């Protein structure tokens, strides 16, 4: 990203001009830079107008400024912060279990294709089953506990990770594997020097989807499995007492969390899989 990609063979034998000051980018017009903010601003204006003009009763929808205030105050040490952190912690736990078990399992299954074929149906089936449908099953196993919420989220996320990592290995560029073999690499060396690296990018795609999935399930579980904390719990409790300001603030907080996790993974992926797409 930072370094200009070396020009193709058109201009051979010039050292890549990494440090050379390329012609400064023509200053992007202000309007272009403001474009990404247009949508959110428009949403806030419409939201505000709808409330101000009384199209929707304030008891159902508070004004955006009230909501944002509730969000900021809540997150700045208010009770919302505690629930936010509880949800983050549960999601992180579920994600870590899924990643620590899923990536190695997927990579191993992927490199033993026969093994993968034999469990492929199970993985595909449970990957296609909405994890929330399994909540009652997990309730029977783990009871109404904190572990339950983490366990079901980890389960849903795990399958995604396994699937992506396994396919990452199976779809490794044949030629890179051949290149390693022809240089005399044995199976283990091909595995550790080529297959694992080739699977990194698909694994990251898996991890990114997995963390979103973990968050979704944690929130759902917090809503419906006798929780006393967490964003999901807060949303449903505020709704029960018609505290809409708090409810919307908690919804926004959940959105912020999901978006931030996604961005965090994109940045990490770009750092680690620096060759991706080139």
């Amino acid at each position, binding site marked *: 990203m930072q370094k200009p990609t*070396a020009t193709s063979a058109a201009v051979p034998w010039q050292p890549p001009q990494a440090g050379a000051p390329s012609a400064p980018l023509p200053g992007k017009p202000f309007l272009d830079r403001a474009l990404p903010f247009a949508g959110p601003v428009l949403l806030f204006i419409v939201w505000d107008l709808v409330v101000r003009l009384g199209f929707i009763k304030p008891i159902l929808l508070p004004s955006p400024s009230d909501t944002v205030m509730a969000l900021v105050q809540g997150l700045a040490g208010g009770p919302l912060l505690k629930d936010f952190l509880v949800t983050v912690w549960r999601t992180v736990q579920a994600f870590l279990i899924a990643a620590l078990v899923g990536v190695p399992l997927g990579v191993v299954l992927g490199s033993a294709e026969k093994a993968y074929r034999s469990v492929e149906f199970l993985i595909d089936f449970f990957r296609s089953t909405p994890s929330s449908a399994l909540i009652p099953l997990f309730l029977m196993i783990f009871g109404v506990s904190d572990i339950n919420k983490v366990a079901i989220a980890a389960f849903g996320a795990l399958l995604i990770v396994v699937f992506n990592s396994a396919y990452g290995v199976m779809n490794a560029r044949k030629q890179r594997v051949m290149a390693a073999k022809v240089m005399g690499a044995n199976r283990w060396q091909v595995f550790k020097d080529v297959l694992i690296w080739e699977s990194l990018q698909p694994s990251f795609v898996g991890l990114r989807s997995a963390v979103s999935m973990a968050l979704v399930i944690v929130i759902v579980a917090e809503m419906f499995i006798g929780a006393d904390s967490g964003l999901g719990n807060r949303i449903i409790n505020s709704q029960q007492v018609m505290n809409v300001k708090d409810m919307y603030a908690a919804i926004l907080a959940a959105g912020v969390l999901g978006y931030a996790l996604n961005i965090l993974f994109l940045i990490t992926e770009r750092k680690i899989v620096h060759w991706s797409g080139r």
Partner: protein
Amino acid sequence: MSAVLNARMVADVPVAPFVPGPAGTQITIRGLTKYFAGWPLYENFDLDIPKHKIVSVFGPNGCGKSTLINMIAGLVPIDAGEILFDGKSLKETKIGYVFQNYREALFPWMRTIDNIAYPLKLEGKSKAQVDRRMAELVASFDVKFDLNRYPYELSGGQQQTASIMRSLAPNPEVLFLDEPFSALDFEMTLFIREKLQEVFMKTGTTMVLVSHDLEEAVYLADQVLLLTKRPTKVAEILTYSDPRPRTVATLSEPSFIAAKKRSLEIFQREVRR
């Protein structure tokens, strides 16, 4: 069960005794047989590839030029036959291989220098040995780009130079090149062609080059191996012995033109057959 069903019927004929090639043979191929989708690509194919020579493989589309060197290099399994390197098996032989698609041959997660050193690390060489060999290679290739960059930061020609350096790093006995210039522009092709010639003159490494460009095939070769359409046989082995270094002037020498003309005639005869 399926393995049994699909097995080819092999008659109980006595195996032909192994006939070694003439003195100075590096690779001996005997009775090489390869089927593709039930049809023979190679059947009972014999070939001797001489030591310390460059052999260019040329032939009609689909005759399996690349498959041939891939079978010799052990990248494609053979159905029957024997391939020996100076009497040794492939396992006991150090080979180098240069792919046409350098983009998918280099490892983008390693810096270019580590890519080149990779085969040495596989051999378990010490850091000092690796460093010494790297310095040698860099000097002999007159590298003018930064080897500490990642391959994707280099131009196509630089990447292919790096893959050739990698294939030569462990001092292989044989170097296979599968259309190494096909993905390069003309300027780079010329440059790498000269580098290969230089390396060959310095080391005498046996090279087997698959090419789809007749001029380039003849220019680099001591022998042009012309193949027939499938089932592939040797149409003819043409010797071209102009002294090295060959230069642009070589391209207009009568002997070069004659060799090229003769190759073309055989090629056309085989294509029409």
